[in-house]
């Protein structure tokens, strides 16, 4: 258990030297913080009005709640500033939709086949994606890909449960990793550093 918490702390030192991808992130200025606050305010206010059927009297509760929630941006450690590429996002969502349909059909086919074609087992994959949003997205997408499920994280090693251990995990996850990197506009580190 001790080693686990140690690796968890290590990966917080971001971006670590072993991270293969670097982020194009700026330091967070006061103006940037204000911009984020306003963005949150607008998004949360939109959700509130949506949930209350655009009734204005509900704003008695909504306005303070939305303000308080948006103010949370000033507390806690500032998350790194991820740059999303729009083209990457559209491509990723489309690809993801197709993959999750394939994943569901695959699992349904296995469930309905009388001989139950399963060769389950665990495999380990070492990721180079940085800690935070990219890695979380990576983990959650693995679970919806055909035949794979992210079972555990130990530092940079991801333990993947597979319905068929003979499938080419390395190739699939490398492809996914590349797509996540494109989505977050991450650039590969120069060879000299790695």
């Amino acid at each position, binding site marked *: 258990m001790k080693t686990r918490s140690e690796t968890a702390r290590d990966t917080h030192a971001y971006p670590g030297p072993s991270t293969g991808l670097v982020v194009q992130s700026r330091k967070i200025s006061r103006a940037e913080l204000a911009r984020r606050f306003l963005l949150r305010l607008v998004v949360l206010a939109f*959700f509130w009005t*949506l*949930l209350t*059927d*655009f009734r204005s009297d509900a704003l008695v509760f909504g306005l303070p709640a939305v303000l308080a929630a948006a103010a949370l941006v000033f507390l806690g450690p500032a998350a790194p500033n991820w740059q999303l590429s729009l083209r990457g996002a559209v491509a990723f969502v489309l690809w993801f939709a197709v993959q*999750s*349909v394939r*994943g*569901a059909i*695959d*699992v*349904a086919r*296995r*469930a*309905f086949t009388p001989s*139950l074609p*399963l060769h*389950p087992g665990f495999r380990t994959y070492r990721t180079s994606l940085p800690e935070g949003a990219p890695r979380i997205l990576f*983990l*959650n*997408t693995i*679970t*919806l890909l*055909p*035949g794979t*499920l*992210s*079972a*555990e*994280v130990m530092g940079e090693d991801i*333990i993947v*449960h597979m*319905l068929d251990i003979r499938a080419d995990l390395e190739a699939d996850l490398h492809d996914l990793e590349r797509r996540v990197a494109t989505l977050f506009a991450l650039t590969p580190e120069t060879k000299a550093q790695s």
Partner: protein
Amino acid sequence: MILDLLAAILIASGAFFFVAGTVGLLRFPDLYCRLHALTKADGLGLALIAMGLSLLAGSAAEILRIILIWFFVALASATCSHLIAAHARRVDRERTDD
């Protein structure tokens, strides 16, 4: 009429994937395989049902709300399945230690 038919097809295929998820839950040999069945099949099942119901919805606000509900479930289910798997692995390790 065509819209109704399309909605019915979407909802029926959604229900089919829920049944597939349950069949997987009943037939798959261990916890991890069953997680695959539940997360993937039920996830697509809900997405299809939500799409079908959006076609039948009375107003734009209703459609937005259905999408929002689907989004919450989709966001949570992959993370929940990871949590269950990670917990089960820790229990497994604890057992082999004994």
